[in-house]
């Protein structure tokens, strides 16, 4: 059995206007998990709780099988984090960042860092201010990887980047998990990126987990049924998760594609992408 890189059980955090509600999911070693959801759904809150940046109200977070608070320092030595385009002041240079990080991570590998800088074409002595947004994100990833972490956590790292840079970053992540020991947890609302590289998808909405599943299973499970607006009543409400009406008819997100094909042979049932699943759920309250 594969060991888990991350196991979250019933994680809860209360705010005045928002509650992260009994969130549970598991990220097996050697895989990439995408955390999807709208802005404010609870993705960042979840990531912050994993890193103990904010205090949980209840629940449990285990990283590499260890409690994330009891073994905080030990765990963090093996985690790489990308929170924003750059967490360093814009007057610092990549070379200075290396000097700083060398004194924070005992395992900091200067030559590995230099090789990332070379690979990403990041000039060592240029100040951060002069780098493009794409370069800043690449720098943050290079920094996060250079102490050879086993778990990489990225919060909306690919947002606002052009497709070429995004692809470069996604390739980088795929390369990172070539080692079976390494795992990635990334949050994003760019579902296309996640669909490309993730092994697991956790969909979070209004602080609750909608679904946490292997991506292939998820895509196999859900389907989109197309019918005329008037035919919607022919479909049992328990069979679908949401629908959207347009001038041309009605699209219905079916929870079980195979069953939908058998039960409703008169309609066309197509594959659903991650974006479809997210959008249909977002309209759920309209039902």
């Amino acid at each position, binding site marked *: 059995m594969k060991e888990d890189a991350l196991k979250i059980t019933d994680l809860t955090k209360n705010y005045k206007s928002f509650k992260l509600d009994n969130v549970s999911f598991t990220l097996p070693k050697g895989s990439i998990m995408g955390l999807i959801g709208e802005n404010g759904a609870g993705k960042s809150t979840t990531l912050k709780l994993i*890193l103990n*940046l904010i205090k949980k109200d209840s629940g449990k977070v285990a990283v590499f099988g260890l409690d994330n608070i009891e073994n905080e320092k030990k765990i963090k030595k093996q*985690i790489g984090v990308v929170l*924003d385009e*750059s967490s*360093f002041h814009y007057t*610092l240079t990549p070379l200075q960042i290396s000097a700083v*990080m060398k004194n*924070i991570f005992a395992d900091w590998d200067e030559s590995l860092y230099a090789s990332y800088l070379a690979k990403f074409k990041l000039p060592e002595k240029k100040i951060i201010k002069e780098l493009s947004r794409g370069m800043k994100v690449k720098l943050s990833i290079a920094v996060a990887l250079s102490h050879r972490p086993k778990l990489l956590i990225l919060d909306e790292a690919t947002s606002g980047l052009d497709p070429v840079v995004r692809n470069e970053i996604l390739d980088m992540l795929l390369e990172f998990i070539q080692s079976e020991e390494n795992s990635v947890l990334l949050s994003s609302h760019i579902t296309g990126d996640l669909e490309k590289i993730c092994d697991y998808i956790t969909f979070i909405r209004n602080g609750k987990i909608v679904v946490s599943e292997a991506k292939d299973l998820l895509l196999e499970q859900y389907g989109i049924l197309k019918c005329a607006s008037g035919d919607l009543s022919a479909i049992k409400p328990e069979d679908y998760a949401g629908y959207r009406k347009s001038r041309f008819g009605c699209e219905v997100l079916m929870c079980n594609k195979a069953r939908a094909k058998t039960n409703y042979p008169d309609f066309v049932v197509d594959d659903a992408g991650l974006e479809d699943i997210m959008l249909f759920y977002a309209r759920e309250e309209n039902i």
Partner: protein
Amino acid sequence: MKGLLLKDFFLFIKNIKFYVFALGFFFVLSFLYNDSGFISGMVVLYFTLFAVSSFSYDDLAGFDIYARSLPVTRKEIVASKYLLGLILSFSGGVLSIVFGLIFNVLKGKSGILKQLLVSYTVICIGLFFLCLILPLIYKFGTEKSRYLMFIIFLIPTLLFVGLSKMNAGHSLAEILPLLLKLSPAILVVFLVLSFLASCNIYERKE
């Protein structure tokens, strides 16, 4: 923790041009007014206050939350700021003595003891101020603390003015030597209390 300090020193060095310019100005001012107090005081104050500025730099980059994701404890993060303040304050103090002595040589004055006393007093004031402001920054954030900073400066100033008016400076002159003798102990107690308060606030911060 060494890494966190190094980060702040890199940022400090970025400002060196400004410091050279400002201190050059105060040196000239000291010269014109024939009083080394300007340069001796300002060099310590500028240096010590950088510890406060470093919080603004961190805010701007979102470094604080990033630092908490690294394998350093919150206590170490707080300690790094106190250490930064202490190191800068003493470095400023050394420079203050050097500047004061250069000033004396140029002006043909003597009085190394007086210079040492002036520099020491400024260090004490700087550190005392730091002890007050750091817990406030942790509690209220950098922006609000800016306003509190004025109040902190104002209270002792008004107190001294009030005291000297009341007693024509007589009892004040009596207290000062005693205050000076006790100052190292007072300062240590203050530093410890302030550090513990900051840690306490920061541990609970989200």
